[in-house]
């Protein structure tokens, strides 16, 4: 094949406003060439103009093109899963077109559940995401620790007592159905109202409350080998509010 375009086969999950960059690396041909053109055509639903670039010779022998786009808001009337578009490469009359990955536009709440699940997966957990208000947001299980976790990922701008009690109530309602051992609440907001801390001081339920920022810091430490998987498990099963 004279031109090969390698695109990862994955579905991109996005939320309104999320930035996506197409990092296109073009290796120049060894033999003589006059012009190479790269065109990115976005799908109609994205309503973005096409991007055209001409590759020029340089001393490195390859070029990098970055094409940035922003995820549009989800539209209830239309399908939220769409193809980003296509990429076309032309060289001396040869032309190849490849489809770009699919994009699923999620609501902010679903997206937060997805990224929380992804973070837990990177921490060594097996995670399943459920949908619907009567189900847990996520169910997580670590191979080195018995028992399942009910994970509630919450996107309120401030985590307050009402939401806290609602999460606890949901956990009690679900724990026998799913055989949950613990509840892990992950808050997107950094702000947690003081009343929640007062309640946590007297809580007897096996629950852990952690901010998403702290969960990311935990992942960063784990990836940098600063902490072991057992310390990760220990942190996420520590009762009450956990900071990293």
């Amino acid at each position, binding site marked *: 094949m004279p031109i*090969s375009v390698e695109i990862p086969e994955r579905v991109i999950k996005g939320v309104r406003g999320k930035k996506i960059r197409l990092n296109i690396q073009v290796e120049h041909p060894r033999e003589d060439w006059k012009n190479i053109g790269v065109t990115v055509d976005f799908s109609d639903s994205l309503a973005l103009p096409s991007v055209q670039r001409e590759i020029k010779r340089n001393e490195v022998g390859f070029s*990098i093109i970055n094409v940035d786009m922003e*995820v549009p808001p989800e539209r209830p009337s239309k399908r939220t899963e769409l193809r980003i578009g296509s990429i076309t490469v032309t060289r001396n009359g040869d032309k190849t077109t490849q489809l770009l990955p699919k994009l699923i536009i999620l609501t902010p709440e679903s997206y937060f559940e997805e990224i929380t699940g992804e973070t837990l997966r990177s921490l060594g957990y097996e995670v399943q995401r459920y949908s619907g208000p009567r189900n847990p947001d996520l169910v997580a299980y670590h191979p080195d620790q018995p028992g399942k976790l009910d994970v509630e990922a919450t996107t309120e701008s401030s985590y307050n007592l009402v939401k806290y009690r609602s999460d606890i109530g949901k956990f009690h309602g679900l724990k026998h159905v799913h055989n949950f051992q613990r509840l892990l609440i992950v808050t997107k907001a950094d702000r947690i109202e003081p009343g929640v801390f007062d309640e946590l001081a007297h809580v007897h339920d096996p629950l852990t409350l952690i901010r998403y920022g702290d969960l990311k810091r935990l992942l960063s430490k784990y990836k940098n080998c600063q902490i072991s998987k057992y310390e990760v498990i220990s942190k996420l099963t520590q009762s009450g509010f956990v900071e990293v």
Partner: protein
Amino acid sequence: MTENSNSNAEALEVIPIAIRFAGRAATFEEQGSELVILRSGDVDIIAYSGDLLLNDFGKLLSYLNQNTNAYATKVLYQTKDQLIALLTVKLAKILGRQNLDAGASRYAKSVFRTLRRLELVDTEGDPTIYARRLLSRWKLRGHEEFYRALGELLLRKGGWTLVLAQLDSLSKGGNYRKKMLHEALRDSLEEKRTTTGIWSVDALVQCLVDLELIKPWDSFHKKYDILWERAAQLLQGSILG
């Protein structure tokens, strides 16, 4: 769940796409290595001083940025000499180090020279456009963009291609222990007279690791793996304009 802000749009997701043509021979890594070694031939001097780490550059730029107030008046220093005198007194606090004592003046001069070589300050010590571009990235949450921009600056203007080329040559040449390799690197750079003043080779290598230009020390194979593709990307970068 009730939230409607756009703050979910936190991270940038990158989709890597590679375009190749039939008959191509060299990989990105090979091309990166060629480019770095080619560029290292032009290096006269390496911009580095003391035991500066990447975050120290951010701290220094933040401090220099305080010199001009809202009325465009210089409040901390007017001239290069005043800046060096100020750094002599304040450097330990800015960098969060132990008291530098007797070495403070030399360290301050050396830091000023490094900032000049990187074209981060002008002859009077005022931050340049590069400094402002770096500073805007330093202020972002997470410093990845800052490291990328600083890496570009250090490779393109600071002569750090020579450090990578030397490290590569030494790694291929012998079965060193980590400490021995660092000493050999220091000797080879000093032999070429590309470094001046007091500087720490350990801190310099740590900067390369933090910039993701080399992998952390591989104690099994006794070497540093150089990430040529990243180096080539930074050399081709467009942050500095």
